């Protein structure tokens, strides 16, 4: 139950692929953000186009929301399977919508309002099965205390381009659903409130596309792979308007190398993939490092290994990105915490990769990339600062001048020159080379030169740590427990901590975003003063647990790990901390309650 002071309401729509869950999800999102309410939506789905089970959860609050929460308040069943799977999760004060012509409710708990909708009657025997979704939206408006006109407006917008007939049909059945619900169902005691200002909505992948565009990406290249494909979709849709060339190419190998070619010519370039595609890109990342050409690679992690579980989340590519490509070289690795952070991180990453002339890797995961987030539109800055680093653009008329692309400078950074510039011709090479690009690898092998060039490339990064903000401890310094995580877990850990705090356990959080460079000293300083340290991560073997140990020598006291494909819910964190405090166990693995 929720009061209007603290509105926290989760709507789930379940059914088979093809039953039309995305559209009502989008319509509801629009309604809530225009009302000024915050939301986070998580879609649990499978890698099929028809059938299976899809379960979309939209959690709405009147304060920022980072995850899909612990409970369901309204369940809309599009088929019997959804009813059978999820009715048991519904507690007192919740509502369940379903087509009473075809779906038989199983045993409901106390205080659950079963809202059967006679769809045939309400649609006048219309055979369009998707109309049941619109009817349910009408009923939801009544339950949530939202005036019908709001739904009518978004339906008109949504179906407008399909013609007035489609709009009228949808509005008419929505009204029938609204009126039927008004006559038959009890609305919530406190309906959906209105926030101070209308918000905007985006997915993590859209935020990544926009982050790249704002950073000045002019060439985007990809091979489709869930859950990264949304970046390609945003790019493809917006490319012509914003002047970005978007290419879908034959494989990730082509994408990863092609962006280096385009970057060498002078563009800012980017590509996105998931773990398996990233595996194919790794050789290119070493090439970018050796040729000293900046390019950005996004790895949207999904459950692995191999093709794994294509539509499920995991944080298990940490060691893959740390070890990507042959040899010993620096690559920047950053794991943003949510969609807005991912958006803001890309321009920062581009400025760094341009400055250091090196590859950059952004680690996202399915949870961020395919998650839907509300955002304050005023917080979105699409015109960030752009710094391109050392590039010589002046032509050189002296016929005897020899441009040294890899000049051994004090800071290790040598100026680039873009092809087409008079007098600055040079070679960039993946084989080891001297300052003047002459290869060392064949007859010219020379240990002194090799050492010099290895040190030159490494020296570039001497001041890197100073350019990155150190992670900060969130919460009381003297807490009983310190939770440590990286990337997408920050929000859900914070909410788990809220629950623990309310129950009298003091907990703080160290959320790490930058993997390379890693603020080892700052992290050591914080963790050495902590009482009990617990790592929270979405994988089995404790990848961040081991990375933290390798960089700081610190072994955390215990871990909460989840590797069933589904993301953490806040109570998983709270339950884990309680259990780990009470016993001697080193690892707590939460049980996933929602079967999807």
């Amino acid at each position, binding site marked *: 139950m929720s009061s209007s002071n603290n509105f926290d309401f989760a709507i789930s729509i379940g059914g088979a692929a093809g039953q039309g869950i995305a559209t009502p999800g989008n319509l509801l999102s629009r309604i809530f*953000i*225009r009302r000024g309410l915050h939301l986070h939506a998580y879609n649990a789905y499978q890698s099929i186009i028809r059938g299976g089970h899809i379960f979309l959860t939209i959690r709405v609050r009147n304060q920022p929301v980072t995850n899909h929460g612990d409970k369901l308040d309204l369940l809309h069943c599009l088929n019997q399977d959804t009813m059978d799977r999820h009715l048991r999760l519904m507690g007192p004060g919740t509502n369940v919508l379903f087509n009473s012509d075809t779906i038989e409710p199983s045993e409901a708990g106390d205080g659950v309002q079963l809202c059967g909708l006679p769809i045939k009657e309400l649609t006048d025997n219309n055979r369009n099965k998707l109309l049941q979704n619109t009817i349910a939206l009408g009923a939801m408006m009544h339950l949530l205390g939202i005036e019908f006109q709001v739904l009518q407006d978004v339906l008109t917008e949504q179906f407008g381009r399909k013609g007035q007939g489609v709009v009228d049909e949808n509005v008419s059945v929505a009204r029938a659903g609204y009126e039927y619900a008004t006559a038959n169902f009890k609305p919530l005691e406190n309906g959906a409130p209105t926030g101070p200002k*209308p*918000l905007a*909505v*985006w997915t993590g992948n*859209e935020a990544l596309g*926009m982050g790249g565009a*704002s*950073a*000045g990406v*002019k*060439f985007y*290249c990809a091979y489709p792979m869930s859950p990264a494909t949304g970046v390609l979709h945003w790019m493809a849709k917006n490319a*012509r*308007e*914003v*002047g970005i*060339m978007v*290419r879908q*190419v*034959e*494989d990730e*190998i*082509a994408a990863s*190398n*092609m962006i*280096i*070619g*385009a970057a*060498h*010519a*002078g*563009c*800012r*370039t980017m590509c996105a993939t998931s773990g398996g595609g990233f595996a194919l890109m790794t050789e*290119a990342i070493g*090439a970018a490092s050796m*040729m000293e050409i900046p390019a950005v690679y996004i790895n949207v992690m999904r459950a692995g290994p191999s093709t794994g579980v294509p539509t499920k989340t995991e944080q298990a590519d940490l060691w893959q990105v740390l070890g990507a490509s042959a040899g010993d070289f620096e690559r920047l690795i950053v794991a943003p915490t949510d969609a807005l952070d991912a958006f803001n991180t890309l321009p920062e990453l581009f400025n760094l990769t341009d400055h250091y002339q090196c590859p950059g890797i952004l680690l996202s995961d399915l949870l961020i990339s395919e998650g839907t987030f509300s955002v304050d*539109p005023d917080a*979105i800055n*699409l*015109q*960030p600062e*752009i710094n391109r680093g050392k590039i010589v653009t002046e032509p050189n008329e002296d016929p005897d001048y*020899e441009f040294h692309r890899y000049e051994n400078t004090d800071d290790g950074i040598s100026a680039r020159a*873009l*092809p*087409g510039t008079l*007098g600055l*011709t*040079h*070679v*960039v*090479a*993946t*084989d080891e080379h001297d300052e003047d*690009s*002459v*290869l060392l690898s064949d007859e010219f092998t020379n240990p002194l030169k090799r050492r010099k060039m290895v040190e030159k490339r490494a020296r570039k990064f001497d001041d890197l740590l100073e350019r990155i903000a150190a992670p900060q401890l969130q919460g009381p310094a003297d807490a009983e427990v310190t939770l440590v995580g990286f990337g997408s877990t920050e929000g859900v850990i914070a909410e788990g901590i809220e629950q623990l705090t309310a129950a009298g356990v003091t907990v703080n959080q160290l959320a790490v975003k930058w993997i390379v460079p890693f603020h080892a000293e700052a992290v050591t300083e914080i963790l050495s003063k902590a009482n009990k340290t617990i790592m929270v991560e979405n994988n089995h073997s404790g990848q961040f647990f081991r990375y933290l140990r390798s960089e700081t020598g610190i072994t955390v006291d215990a871990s909460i790990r989840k590797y069933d494909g589904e993301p953490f819910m806040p109570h998983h964190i709270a339950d884990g901390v309680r259990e780990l405090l009470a016993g001697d166990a080193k690892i707590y693995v939460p049980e996933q309650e929602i079967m999807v």
Partner: protein
Amino acid sequence: MTATELSPKDFKSKINPDWCPGCGDFGVLNGLQRACAELGIAPHTIVNVSGIGCSSNFPGYFKAYGMHTLHGRSLAYAAGVQLANHELTVIATGGDGDGYGIGGNHLTHIARRNVNLTYIVMNNQIYGLTTGQVSPTSRPGAKTKSTPFGNLETPINPITSAIMAGATFVARGYSADGKHLTELMKKAIQHNGFALIDIFSPCVTFNKDNSYDFFKPRVKKLEDEGHDTSDWKAACEKALEWGDTIYTGLFLQREQPTLSDLEPVLKEGGPLARRPLGLSTEDSARIIKRMC
């Protein structure tokens, strides 16, 4: 610069090739230096991209902007350069293992996309840099270090493969016929679209089968046969001939818009790589409005 001001030595780098004496690649290097000089293309407007292999050392010896990249990936890099700056002349160079083996997939796709660049393959029917293993163009029965008892596989035919993939310019040259080669290269560079020149470039160290003595009596120029370069069926028939007669010359040439010609983003504003970065205030406002 105009054509009269350039000579082949303007395309000579400070490094001497480390190829074996007698290697066919010398003829290819000389041919390209002459072709670019005769066409009057200034070195700083050329990007020469290669992969890995003996012949992929080309950018080190050819004065221009060069990219010496990963094994098999030269076409991916070359396409990236060309699409990012379509005012440059992009020339990819490499060998048969690099282009038809490990990089074979890229060839198919760059051909059908008709990316405006020239791809020069020095085909010696052997892996030379790794000291003599079988290649995708080695003849059946070829005895190499990796097939000591003879090659069991059928070789790829680069000419028919490229034609089938949709290449708009497909030619074959012979490194010992420098004059003919130079003319082919000039045509290929001037061609608006993807141009492949497969060149017999004998490996004198590791391939005793496909030597100068093998090719000399066999190679015949299509130009002398009255071949119609718009007839793809005739081109395939001629390309499949492999006996006492092996044809060189231009097999097929078609006019077709290149990817850069078709790409709306390139219609105005010059090369992508030279455009200002970032979004306009109007773009920003429009993008955010759609999210609300």
